[in-house]
């Protein structure tokens, strides 16, 4: 997979000519905070058009992994590849231009802007070369997440659910290869969760985007993911299909503790 190919594939916005299944790779990533190893020698791949779940108890390093993947943190060692290109140490905005977009655990929308303006930021700045018809792109993704009627509402007056949907829209509008969702369902009620699940599924299908998804709502993640990665104390303890993960002893131990014999 050479460099030119990856660039052109993004420019034409046709992801079909991207060869190889692994579009994103993390190779033995380690990240320390003082004496704490938040991530310890983590390696995994993301495959094209796959939804991958990332689960683990609180403090397992899931959000740190996201921040390393989007260059908000620099890893102490290890490398990250997107379409075969080394992206370790690039600036966060460059990472976005190259095709990784994300949402945040604490819905980071631009509160003083309207919903449409929020998405316009992603439409105008999230993509290189800069797209034309940004307004049309923005309205399309707002429609996709079901916020088209709320496009003129100031974000600070929106519900948490709508703000999370808006973040997904803003991430999608930059035409990413990979979308990282950091607990998109945290704090949502069952009907809102249903809506969010529907939106994620729709985004995945209509936009051909691979998704890496951190979630505590295990039933939601098991219903939609092709593959699941489990972290505990900064280490990868399991990886596989949802059925396998549900049976995995390490995972059960991590969540429920060791059985007393």
């Amino acid at each position: 997979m050479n460099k030119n190919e990856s660039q052109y594939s993004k420019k034409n916005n046709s992801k079909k000519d991207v060869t190889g299944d692994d579009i994103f790779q993390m190779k033995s990533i380690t990240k320390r905070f003082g004496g704490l190893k938040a991530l310890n020698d983590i390696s995994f791949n993301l495959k094209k058009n796959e939804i991958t779940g990332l689960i683990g108890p609180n403090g397992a390093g899931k959000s740190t992994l996201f921040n390393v993947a989007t260059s908000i943190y620099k890893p102490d060692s290890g490398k990250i590849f997107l379409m075969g290109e080394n992206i370790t140490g690039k600036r966060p905005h460059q990472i976005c231009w190259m095709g990784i977009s994300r949402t945040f655990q604490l819905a980071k929308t631009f509160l003083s802007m309207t919903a449409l303006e929020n998405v316009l930021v992603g439409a105008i700045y999230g993509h290189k070369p800069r797209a034309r018809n940004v307004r049309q792109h923005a309205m399309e993704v707002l429609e996709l997440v079901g916020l088209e009627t709320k496009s003129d509402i100031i974000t600070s007056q929106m519900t948490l659910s709508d703000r999370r949907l808006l973040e997904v829209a803003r991430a999608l509008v930059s035409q990413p290869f990979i979308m990282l969702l950091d607990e998109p369902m945290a704090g949502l009620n069952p009907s809102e969760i249903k809506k969010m699940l529907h939106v994620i599924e729709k985004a995945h299908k209509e936009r051909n985007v691979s998704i890496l998804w951190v979630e505590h709502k295990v039933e939601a993640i098991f219903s939609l993911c092709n593959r699941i990665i489990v972290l505990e104390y900064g280490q990868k303890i399991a990886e596989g299909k949802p059925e396998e993960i549900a049976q995995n002893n390490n995972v059960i131990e991590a969540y429920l503790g060791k059985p007393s014999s």
Partner: protein
Amino acid sequence: MLRLNQMKVHTKYIAGLIVVIFFVLCPLFLNSERSYFIYFLYTTFIYITIAQGWNLIAGYTGQVSLGQHAFFGLGAYITAITWRAGLTGYFDPLAFLLSGTGALLLAAIVGVVLLSKLRDDYFSLGTLGIGEILRVAALNGGSFTEGAAGISLNSTAYKSMNHYYYTALFIMLFTLVVIVLLIRSRVGLALIAIREDETAASANGIPVLRYKILAFSIGAFVTGLCGSLNAYYIFHVHPPGVLSLNWVVIPVLMCILGGAGTFMGPILGAFVLSIAFELTSIWMPEIHPIFSGAFIVLVTLFMPSGIMYYITNHKSMIMRRLRLTVFKWMNQKA
């Protein structure tokens, strides 16, 4: 609805135009050499310009700079030194350009260092240092800056107050136009995004540092222009005068009072505060800073986000009260 909105925008432009025409015509009806009103407008224009420059970096982009007096002072010194050296003359456009550009370059250089490394309060403290560094440099500059005594310029070159008045008006209008165009463009969207959430802004593809430096530099440029004009006005450029903290504190106060992050805020704030300063200094010259201070405290107490936000948030309430008062008054008459 759309037509109504368009009409509203239309009336805004017309109102702005009328005010500008009024300012342009003022010197024709008043004796500008003697009129206090002309002098008042001249200083207010300068304050509006500096406040609007600060508004761009602090109000819109969220990076609270306290270094505007450094850019003001640098502009003044560049004008004075080039004039003394014979490179530029009295009211030389080249001097204005050099002063503005000098301030812009200083902001860009300092910005690369400070804006990339320091966040929030630390950035403010860092910028406060720029002014201090310049002040010490000017004091110890030997014959180049003439130390504490400062550079005295040839005051016989003075022509008329109208020159100053119209130049200040022009610089202010230039600044307002630049800022309104910036804010309504895509650049404005990026700046506000940075203010609202820097991490989210960069994760959405905005090269944060570049836009911060852009806003900082443009603010510095217009402040440098004001410094240059001030050098021509005072004919004496010395550290306590042009590098005084007043050149940052007063415009910042005006901007916050009017509403930082709004276009009308700094304009309104500058007028309100200038009027408050002038009135108190006329009525109670001995204790006027106390009253100005009390006034500032009261306004911030009752309108914590500035006059502009208060007006936009309470528009219907204000209108209702107005109508009620008029109604009562008419009833009394009847």
